[in-house]
C-alpha cells in the first residue's frame, strides 16, 4: 500500500470522525471542563456580576453541609440497590427464563420488562399515590392488617425513607438487566450446560459454577451502567419522594436532587457546578473499583 493511499485513508478517517468529535467537544466535554472551572468561582450568571476566583470555597461549603452527606448516603443506598439488587435479581430471572424453569416464559419476560416502557416520572407519581394516605395500596393494606387507620410511614423516619425508592428502583430496572443477561445467555453454547446436566450438576450448581462465571463480563458492564445511572438519577426521586424529591426533613435527598434544590433553584450555578464535579468524581471512582473487581474475578483473565 502506498504512502499516498495511507494519507488518503487518514483524511477519510478524520472527516468521518470530526463531526461526532466536534459534537462531543461542544456538547459534552466542553461543558464539563467549563463546569469544572466554574466550580472554583462565585459566578452565578447574574447581570453585572464580577467573576471572582474563590478556590475551593464551594467545595468546602458542600462538605460542611449536612444535607450533602445525607444525599451522598442515600445515593450509596441507591447504588447498592442497583448493583446488589437489580443485577442479581435480573440474572436469576434471566436464568429461570433461559432454562425454562417457568411456564409461559414469553409472558413473564414481557411482564418483568414492562416497567421499562413506562416513564419513570409516571412510576414515581404512581408509587407515591398508591402508598399515600388515600392511596389504593394503603386501602388494601388496611384491609389486610385489619386496621382502618394504617398508613405507610416509611417517609417519616430517615432509616426507612429510602425503602419506597428501593422498591420502585427494583421494579423499574430489573427487567432491563434481565433482558441483557437473557440475550447473552442465548448466545452461549448449550452443549456445555447439557454436558453439566449429564454429569449430574443440578440447576443450582449450573447457575453458580457455569452461568455466573460466563456472565462475568456482562455483570461488570451492567454494574458500570447501574452505578452511573444511580448517581445521575433524578426524575423518579423527584416524582416519588415528598417535597419534590427532598422527602420529609430532607430524608430522601440524593445528590442530583440536592443540586436541584440548593443550587439550581436558587440560581447558585457555581455551587451547582461543584456538586456536579463531585458526582462525576464519585462515578469515576466507583467505575474504577468495578473494573478492578471485575478483572480480579474474571476467570478468563491472564495470570
Amino acid at each position: 500500500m502506498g504512502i499516498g493511499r495511507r494519507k488518503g485513508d487518514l483524511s477519510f478517517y478524520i472527516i468521518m470522525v470530526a463531526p461526532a468529535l466536534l459534537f462531543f467537544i461542544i456538547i459534552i466535554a466542553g461543558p464539563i471542563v467549563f463546569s469544572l472551572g466554574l466550580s472554583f468561582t462565585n459566578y452565578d450568571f447574574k447581570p453585572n456580576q464580577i467573576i471572582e476566583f474563590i478556590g475551593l470555597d464551594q467545595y468546602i461549603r458542600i462538605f460542611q453541609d449536612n444535607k450533602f452527606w445525607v444525599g451522598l448516603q442515600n445515593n450509596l443506598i441507591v447504588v447498592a440497590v442497583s448493583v446488589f439488587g437489580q443485577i442479581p435479581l435480573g440474572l436469576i430471572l434471566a436464568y429461570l427464563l433461559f432454562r425454562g424453569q417457568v411456564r409461559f416464559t414469553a409472558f413473564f419476560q414481557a411482564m418483568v420488562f414492562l416497567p421499562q416502557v413506562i416513564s419513570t416520572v409516571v412510576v414515581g407519581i404512581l408509587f407515591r399515590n398508591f402508598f399515600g394516605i388515600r392511596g389504593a395500596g394503603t386501602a388494601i393494606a388496611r384491609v389486610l392488617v385489619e386496621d382502618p387507620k394504617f398508613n405507610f410511614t416509611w417517609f417519616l423516619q430517615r432509616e426507612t425513607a429510602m425503602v419506597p425508592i428501593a422498591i420502585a428502583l427494583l421494579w423499574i430496572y430489573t427487567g432491563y438487566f434481565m433482558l441483557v443477561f437473557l440475550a447473552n445467555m442465548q448466545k452461549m453454547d448449550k452443549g456445555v450446560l447439557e454436558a453439566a446436566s449429564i454429569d449430574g450438576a443440578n440447576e443450582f450448581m449450573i447457575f453458580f459454577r457455569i452461568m455466573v462465571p460466563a456472565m462475568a463480563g456482562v455483570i461488570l458492564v451492567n454494574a458500570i451502567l447501574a452505578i452511573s445511572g444511580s448517581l445521575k438519577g433524578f426524575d423518579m426521586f423527584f416524582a416519588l419522594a415528598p417535597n419534590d424529591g427532598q422527602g420529609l426533613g430532607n430524608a430522601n435527598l440524593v445528590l442530583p436532587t440536592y443540586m436541584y434544590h440548593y443550587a439550581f433553584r436558587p440560581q447558585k450555578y457555581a455551587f451547582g457546578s461543584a456538586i456536579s464535579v463531585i458526582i462525576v468524581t464519585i462515578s469515576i471512582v466507583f467505575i474504577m473499583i468495578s473494573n478492578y473487581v471485575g478483572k480480579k474475578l474474571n476467570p478468563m483473565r491472564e495470570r
Partner: protein
Amino acid sequence: MKKVLAMLIIVISACSFIFANGQQEKNEQVTLSFLNYGDVTTPEGQASLQLQEEFEAQNPDIKLVADIQFDESYHQKLAALLASGETPDVFYSWGSGNRLQPVLDANEAIDQKQFINPENFAANAMIGAGPAGELYTVGIGVGIHSAFYANTALLDELGLKPATTYEELVAQVSVIRDAGLEVIAYAGGTDWVQGTCLYSTLLGRYGGPEFVADLYNNKATFTDEPSLRALEMIERMYADEVFNKNTVLADYGTSLSQYLNSEAPYMLDGGWRGGGIEDPALADATLWTVLPSMPGEKYAGTTNGGVTPGYAITASATADPAKLEAAKKLLIFMTGEHANKIRAEIQGVIPSYKVSGEVTFLAGTANQGVLANSVEIITNTLDNFVTGDPITVSNTVIMEIGLGTKTAAEAALEIQTAFENN
C-alpha cells in the same frame, strides 16, 4: 440576458414589497414584549390569557409579543431573559423576596407607583418593599395566607361546635379521633405550607406586625421569645395530638381531599383554598375563620397574608417614550378595575383595586373577602420579605418538629443561623 434582467426585477420588487410592509407596520404599531404568568389549564391561567387577548383586541396600535409560563419554567425563563439582556417590557412580578431578586440584580426593578394612580388601590397593596418604599409590582389581589375552615355539619354530627380557643380544640381531639377522623386536614408534608399557613400565623399571634417586620429587618431574631413561642406552640400541637404523624404524611393535595371527603372537620390552609370546596352543601356548611386563639398569645384573632404578585414595567422599557406609554396602558389594564373583576369572577381573588359596584366572586370564594375584612390585623407572611435559605430551612425544621427529630429551641437556632448566613 433578458431572463437575468427579469429575475432581477422580480427580486427587487419582492424585497421592496417586504420592506415596505415592515415600514408600514413600524409606523402603525408599537411592539411590546410581555412575559405573562399562568397555567392555562387552571382558572388563574385562563384569566391571564383572557385579559391579555382583550388588551390586544382593544389596542390594535400595540403589537404584543407575549409568552405565558407557569411556576418554575416561568422563573427560569425570566432569569434567562434577564441574563441575556432580552428583558421583557412588562412582566408578571413578585413584589419582594426570592422571586424578585433576579430582577433587582439586573437593575430592572423600578417603582411602579409612578405609572399608576395609587389612590385607586387598597392601601396595603401600595406598601412597597424597596428601601425607600418603592413598589416593585402592582399586585393583582390581596390574600389571606392562613384560614381555618370548619365543617359545621360534620361537627354537628359529632356533637361539637367550631373551636374558638386552643383548649376547646384539644378537648375535641379524642371525640374526633374516636370517630376515625383527623382533627385538622393540613398539608404538613409540604414544606412551604409550614411557613405560610402556620408558623407565620403564630409569629403574628405572639409577636404582632412589628415583630414580623423586625425579623426581616434584622432587628429581631428567630430565637427571640415570640418566634420561640410560635415554634413551641407547633411542638405542643403535635404533643396534644391536634396534629399527628399522618399530618406530616399529607401532601398539599391530600389535605384538601381529606376535608372534601369529611375525613377531618377542620382544615388549615390558605384563603385561596376555599375555592376548592365545590360541593354546595359543604361550602354552605363551612365556616371561614382564623386559627383559634392560642395560649399566651398577644395579638388575638390575627392572621397572615399579603399582596399577591402582579405586573410591573421594567427599567429597560422606560428608555423609549412610545414603548413606555404602551407599557403603562398594559400595566393599568392588567391591574385595573376590569381585570380585578375578571379575576374575582374566574379565580376568586380579592381585588387590590377599589372596584366600584358589585363584584361577583367565583362560587365559594366570596368568603375570603369577608374574612379579610373581618380580621383587624393581617400580618405579613414571612416569605413575603425573607428570601433564600432561611425560608427553606424554616420550612424544613418545622416539619422536623412534627417528625419529632427537632425541638423548638433547636429549630429556632437553625433558622436564625440560616438567616445570618444568607
